[in-house]
Structures are given as structure tokens and as C-alpha cells.
């Protein structure tokens, strides 16, 4: 890899710049919290680009070059530790400033490269910062006890009921086969039920939101939970609406808990999903 050499220091390669996020420069009249960068040694600092500041740390290109970093990110333990670091830094910044958060490992090879990227998007960034200043991002995950849903579907679902009646009129041999098919039908109907239930909850909450996004569900190996994630979505809210949004969820939590639906809400998050550029 050909990295430009820093002026006056011919023997050292130019440092890489790890970008955490963008904040309005007016906000830095409040000094940055003292935080360590990704390598645990260098300090976090801000680079001014007139109206906006980039919060960054420097990284050694030999330890964090493309190949080395790829190796590191393929190590799940490393990934856990530093994904946490990235998040913690952003939460600290978010406590003090409106911020456009970057994804984990957004790295530039030089100051010039960062500058040209920022110059290109500056206008949009300023608008975004203004736009997200009075808004919050919250995430809802719905988990269900799959057995309870299945039981309910097996007991009350019309499609399943009529299939049961058909089967009852068959010969014993056919009955056995058809019962197995019925099990599959119940599974399918249970999936539909999970989707329909979650969509209903989502629609109610979306009506309070400025914007929403539906994310992918995670399987049990990842969540480490015994119940099943059946919905994962994110909401952009006016700050003034957050209380009613949370009250609405609390009410739903109480209403549906016994039926095996568990709603988990987290936030406020830095605007990871709605502060989009380009």
C-alpha cells in the first residue's frame, strides 16, 4: 500500500484517521470529553471544518492497515471489544452534542482524504445535524414464546379448524399423513400470526414516528434468549413525543406479556439509522 509520507517526517508513514462522528462546531465550545481512541493509547480529538467538526483518533497504519484490520475484524472477540468501544465513545459524545454517528471502522488514509470527503457532503451534514437535534432514535424488538403462539393457532385458527374436520372424516392411514401435514400448516399459520401481530404493533408506533425502518431478526444463537425474536425495528421520534411513545409501548407490554409476547425497547441511540448521507 502506498501511503503518502508526512511532511518533515520522511521515515514515518502518515497516521490513519478513524472517524467516530460529525458534530456542529458551535457545540465544541463545550470541550470534548477526555477519551482514548481505538488503540487505547491515542486521545480523541476534533478536526474543524468550519461549521462542523469531525471527532477522530489517529491509528498506526502498520497495525491498522487494511489487511491487519480485516484480520482483526474477523476475530469475533476483537470485534466485540471494539464495537463496544465505538459505541461507548459515541454515547459519550451523544450526551453532549447532536452527532452524525459513523459505522464501526470508518477510516481514512489521510487528513486530505477525510477533508475531501467532508467538503463534498458538508452542506448535507449541516442540514442533517440541524434536523436530528430535536429528535431521538429508539429501537423495538419483539420476542415471542413460539410454543404459546403455536398452541393458540392450533386451538383457534379457522384454517386449522377446517383442516381438522376434514381429517376426522378420513381413513386411519390417510389421517396419519394428513396430521403431519396439519402440523406444517400450524407452523405456517404461527409464522403468519407472529408477522401480523408485530406489524400491528409497528403500525401503532409508526403513527407516532417521523420515520421508521424494519431491521432483520436475529436467531437464538445470537440473542442467547429462549424466546424467539420476531420483530426488530427502529423509530425516529420528535423529543416531545418520546414520553407518549414509551407509554404506548409500556401499555402494550403489559397487555401482551401473558400471551407470550415480549417487547423490548432501547434508546435513545445516536442517529445510526436516520442520519444518512448521499
Amino acid at each position: 500500500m502506498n501511503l503518502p509520507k508526512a511532511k518533515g517526517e520522511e521515515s514515518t508513514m502518515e497516521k490513519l484517521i478513524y472517524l467516530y462522528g460529525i458534530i456542529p462546531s458551535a457545540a465544541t465550545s463545550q470541550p470534548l470529553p477526555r477519551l482514548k481512541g481505538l488503540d487505547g493509547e491515542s486521545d480523541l480529538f476534533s478536526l474543524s471544518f468550519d461549521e462542523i467538526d469531525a471527532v477522530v483518533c489517529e491509528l498506526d497504519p502498520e497495525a491498522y492497515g487494511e489487511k491487519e484490520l480485516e484480520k482483526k475484524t474477523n476475530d469475533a472477540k476483537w470485534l466485540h471489544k471494539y464495537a463496544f468501544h465505538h459505541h461507548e465513545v459515541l454515547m459519550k459524545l451523544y450526551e453532549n452534542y447532536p452527532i452524525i454517528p459513523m459505522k464501526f471502522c470508518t477510516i481514512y488514509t489521510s487528513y486530505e482524504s477525510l477533508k475531501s470527503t467532508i467538503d463534498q457532503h458538508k452542506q448535507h451534514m449541516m442540514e442533517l445535524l440541524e434536523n436530528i437535534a430535536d429528535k431521538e432514535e429508539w429501537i423495538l424488538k419483539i420476542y415471542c414464546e413460539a410454543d404459546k403462539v403455536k398452541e393458540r393457532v392450533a386451538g383457534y385458527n379457522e384454517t386449522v379448524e377446517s383442516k381438522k374436520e376434514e381429517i376426522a372424516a378420513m381413513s386411519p392411514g390417510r389421517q396419519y399423513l394428513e396430521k403431519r401435514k396439519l402440523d406444517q400448516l400450524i407452523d405456517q399459520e404461527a409464522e403468519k400470526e407472529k408477522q401480523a401481530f408485530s406489524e400491528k404493533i409497528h403500525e401503532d408506533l409508526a403513527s407516532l414516528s417521523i420515520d421508521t425502518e424494519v431491521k432483520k431478526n436475529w436467531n437464538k444463537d445470537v440473542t442467547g434468549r429462549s424466546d424467539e425474536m420476531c420483530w426488530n425495528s427502529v423509530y425516529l421520534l420528535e423529543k416531545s413525543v418520546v414520553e407518549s411513545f414509551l407509554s404506548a409501548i409500556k401499555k402494550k407490554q403489559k397487555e401482551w406479556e401473558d400471551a407470550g409476547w415480549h417487547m423490548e425497547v432501547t434508546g435513545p441511540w445516536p442517529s445510526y439509522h436516520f442520519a444518512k448521507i448521499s
Partner: protein
Amino acid sequence: MSQRSEFNNKDVGLIDILDVVLDKGVALKGDLIISIAGIDLVYLDLRVLIASVETLIESNKETAAKLSSKQLDREKEELDRVINQS
């Protein structure tokens, strides 16, 4: 107590964090594009790791898998019998 103080940053787990900081939607492209371009692969590794850490759960699962495969065999036999009858 306000709803907010009850929910603020409560119970935020690893999965919640990875779910946002590794998301495919990128705010700004960096120069180093390893930037978890193979994000699904990373997720895959993650799953493996988390599974291997939870040894207890894992070993319970194994028992369950054995049981259910035994049960499957039995059901298959029954099914064969029924098919041969009718």
C-alpha cells in the same frame, strides 16, 4: 417517574450494539473498505463464538438434537408402516 428514565439505556446488550454499529447502512464511506464489507460473514463468526461460549446451553442442545433425531427415526418408521398398509 418519567417513562424516559425508566427505559433510558436500560438492558442494552451486545446484540443491540452490534445490531446498530455494524448495520449495512453506512453514513459515510471510509477509505479502508474492509469496513466490514463481508458483514454477513462477520455475523456468522459471531454466531459461532457466542454459541461456543455458552457451553452449557450448547450441551443441552446436543442432547435435545439427539433426542429429536431419534424421535424422527421412529416417526419415519411409523410413516413407512402406514404407507405400506394403505
